[in-house]
């Protein structure tokens, strides 16, 4: 299972980065996060994420990240877009793998989404498999979702996004465990930009006994072509 996921992710990453010669648009982001977690205390995260769009119909996002709590995550999401006058509909595949200590998580999902200049939304279903030391547990009933708002869609170099999600790239959670993010982007040149953001993750929200779980800040360096 782990080997299969690894091969698929590798192929998608190769597809993503080898497509530069025919690319319409691509972007690579190096993110660094720091934050406080209720269970682990202070933590840091380094992530490398990339996306590549082809002919307005295909887009693939992929990334790899390491969290100092001992968590390594890899994820890829190829998507097909059907363009409409007011936006586009999207169908995507989601492949996600995390190793934290001895515990492995693999998830395979399918989702649909809608995007227009001001908002985007995604909802999908995924199957999770957890395994460690010869034992495994299936979690077959999971929903992933994301609701985002582009606050400055008309500006070429600036963007400000508010996102409510349990499934940002590399951060896939169970459906009752959403997070709230606010991200700002600024491209100093046509190709190079920076981003800053904050994220808040509560615990127990769907138990209606919410409590603080995690707060983080992030900075990123972006390159697009």
């Amino acid at each position, binding site marked *: 299972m782990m080997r299969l996921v690894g091969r698929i992710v590798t192929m998608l990453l190769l597809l993503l980065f080898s497509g530069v010669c025919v690319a319409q648009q691509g972007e690579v982001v190096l993110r660094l996060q720091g934050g406080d*977690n*209720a*269970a*682990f*205390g202070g933590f840091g995260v380094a992530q490398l994420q990339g996306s590549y769009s082809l002919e307005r119909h295909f887009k693939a996002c992929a990334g790899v990240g390491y*969290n100092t*709590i001992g*968590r390594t995550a890899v994820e890829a999401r190829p998507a097909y877009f059907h363009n409409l006058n007011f936006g586009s509909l999207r169908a995507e595949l989601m492949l996600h793998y*995390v190793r*934290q*200590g*001895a*515990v492995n*998580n693999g998830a395979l999902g399918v989702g649909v989404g809608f995007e227009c200049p001001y908002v985007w939304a995604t909802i999908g279903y995924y199957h999770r498999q*957890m395994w*460690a*030391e010869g*034992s*495994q*547990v*299936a*979690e*077959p*009933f*999971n929903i992933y979702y994301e609701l985002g708002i582009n606050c400055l869609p008309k500006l070429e170099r600036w963007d400000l996004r508010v996102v409510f999600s349990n499934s940002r790239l590399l951060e896939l*959670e*169970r459906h*009752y*465990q959403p997070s709230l993010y606010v991200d700002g982007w600024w491209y100093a040149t046509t190709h190079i930009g920076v981003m800053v953001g904050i994220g808040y*993750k509560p*615990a*127990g*929200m*769907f*138990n*209606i*006994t*919410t*409590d*603080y*779980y*995690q707060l983080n800040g992030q900075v990123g360096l972006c390159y697009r072509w």
Partner: protein
Amino acid sequence: MLQMVKRIFSVALALLLVGCDSVDIKGLIVPVSDSVNRRCEQSLAMCGDGAYATFTAESEQYDIYVAADTHVADTAKNLQQFVDIVRADGTAPFGYMVGDCIDKRGQMELYVSALQQRDGQQYSQPILSALGNHDLFFDGWDSFRELVGPSVYWFEAVHPSGRDLFITLDSASGTLGRVQTAWLKRLLREQRDSYCHCVIFSHVNLFYTDNSQTGSGNMPLEESAALMQLFSQARVSLVVQGHDHYREDVEFMGVRYVIIGTMRDDALSPEYGHITLTEQGVDVEWREF
């Protein structure tokens, strides 16, 4: 149209502010009681450094009875029946309720009264409790702490061949929080080797193997994975959970995780857990009324 939007907004706002007697809607956004860190600090202050209780079992093999999710609301028939069962078995050193004791505002007195000794009960074992998310609604922690006791504690059962360790966790907020996590790690590091078996009680379950309770949640995945490894390294014998209302039996990394189904009065098949501890291991049997 505008009028309708205003009405919907007003109703939503009113629900958010006051909820109903069963569900404290504002808990979606803000804590409905003290935070888990504060509850843990208060609980540990109530217990001191040592065991919250020490029970004696007559032999190496003994039984304990576990109920879950009684959700007491105006009546407590099944809970009283469970207490009768516990107090008919002289070999059981204690009974246990794994959280969500009540389902409505102001029901904690009824819950506690159902645990009191009644005529016809042959023995008088105590029934210990864990804190559930429903117990926290409407500042419920204050009445739980006053009438039931701490939400984080450990206790032991002494038998002729040694001692067994029992740990109660406060997972009602969907996270153990920093204070409790540190306490749990220290407790397992310092105490585990002195005991034969280690049984952990937690209201919120760690795995999500079925869709029996779509809406309610477990702990975040990162924290769940860390706890699974901690329990495995500490050779925890059994983790007894509730919250899901449906029985589950999972073994992961050498640790057995079980869920005891609900015992609420309107449940179709209320059940309780019958746990047998022997020198060889720990066995669990689900029994319906």
